[in-house]
């Protein structure tokens, strides 16, 4: 017995270390995916109040971005006024690059055919190359993201709907800015799956999922849907998130195509770089 006690005292540091590691791992395994249920988390009063105070300050730093977003939305809404839609239906002037404050050009269109019940769903709209629609333009509606233009004829265009298993969209969580890739799994026309959100991201039901703005197709922050359900993919460290789409594809009637004005410039530049 005395030897045992001597042994413990001799290596007390190691045992203390083991004790703390055991507690840590116990906490880690038990509470990490149920962090709302433990009292030691950021919803506890102390941490929450510190974070709230910091939020009050940092809100000011994001004012500029908020302003930009608001003005962009203003511009977007303005293009929906009747007189503007008329003007936008005319050919766009040659020197449009001079209007460098405008990033995206919106053209309204009407859905004349669509499907929701196949694996590869397409939408047909009543505007085509005569009205300036070209392949690879983004398509949105007032309620959220719709798809990407595939083929164009003089008066019509077909759009790969979001409900198409071939389409992958770069999306992010509006709250935490973590981004992943969104695709349709071919099941319900009201839901899509968001992958590749890392396990440490804060995910909660009801959070908005928006476009990331990394591609030249869509502006940043276009609503896609809200989180309906999520689970952690054990072993990979990524969430699999079921997103309730904000658009009802069954009753879609009016959409807008999005053109990034500087896209040609960007592509020419990238082609130059690739040829080198």
């Amino acid at each position, binding site marked *: 017995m005395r030897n045992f006690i001597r042994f413990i005292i001799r290596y*007390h*540091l*190691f045992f*203390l*270390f083991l004790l*703390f*590691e055991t*507690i*840590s*791992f*116990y*906490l*880690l*395994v038990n*509470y*990490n995916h149920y*962090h709302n249920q*433990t009292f*030691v*988390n*950021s919803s*506890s009063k102390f*941490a929450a109040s*510190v*974070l709230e105070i*910091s939020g009050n300050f*940092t809100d000011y730093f994001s004012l500029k971005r908020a302003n930009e977003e608001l003005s962009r939305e203003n511009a977007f809404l303005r293009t929906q006024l009747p007189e503007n839609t008329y003007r936008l239906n005319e050919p766009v002037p040659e020197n449009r690059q001079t209007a460098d404050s405008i990033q995206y050009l919106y053209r309204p269109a009407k859905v004349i055919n669509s499907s929701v019940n196949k694996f590869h769903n397409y939408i047909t709209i009543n505007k085509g190359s005569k009205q300036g629609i070209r392949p690879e333009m983004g398509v949105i509606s007032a309620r959220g993201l719709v798809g990407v233009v595939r083929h164009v004829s003089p008066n019509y265009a077909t759009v790969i709907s979001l409900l198409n298993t071939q389409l992958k969209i770069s999306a992010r969580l509006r709250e935490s*800015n973590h981004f992943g890739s969104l695709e349709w799994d071919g099941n319900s026309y009201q839901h899509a799956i968001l992958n590749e959100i*890392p396990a*440490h991201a*804060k995910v909660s039901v009801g959070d908005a999922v928006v476009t990331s703005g990394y591609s030249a197709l869509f502006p940043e922050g276009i609503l896609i849907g809200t989180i309906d359900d999520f689970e952690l993919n054990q*072993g990979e*460290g990524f969430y699999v998130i079921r997103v309730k789409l904000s658009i009802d594809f069954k009753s879609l009637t009016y959409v807008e195509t999005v053109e990034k004005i500087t896209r040609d410039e960007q592509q020419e530049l990238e082609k130059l770089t690739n040829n080198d």
Partner: protein
Amino acid sequence: MINHLGRYLLSFIAILLVQVLVLNNLNLGGYINPWLYVLFILILPVEMPNWLLLVLAFATGLIMDTFLNTIGLHASATVFLAFLRPFLLRFFAPRDGYEPGSLPVTSHFGLGWFLKYTLLAVLAHHLFLFIVEAFSFENFLATLWKTILSSLVTLVVIMIAQLFSSRERRRI
């Protein structure tokens, strides 16, 4: 001693605030996140009893975890660091041992010594942290890469923090 205590309390709060309010909001290249808070464990006095070191490390890690919603993750890594620290200090000990009252900081032992000491400690802490975070040895290369990159960034941030603290000490 009281003076000591106050200073450590202040530096702990300062480190905590910088970590929580500034560094946790950085997103360098997607996943590089500097963990400045290990500095608090690194600069505790050399003579501090090892059990107290472990207790403080556990508390520090747990406080970080409450802010990051990763209960246990940082606690385990920080306790591991605190367990390693006496060995590191013994490994880097000056030829005639540590003088009483010395602190493992740049102003006491010089930049080169502090750099070596911090680099090893931070690497160990980050490696442990990222392995536990991944919770598997799959993709070990990615974990290793992440460890190295994050360690370098943490090291830079710690060096900047040391600039501040050493200037303060000279003024006093």
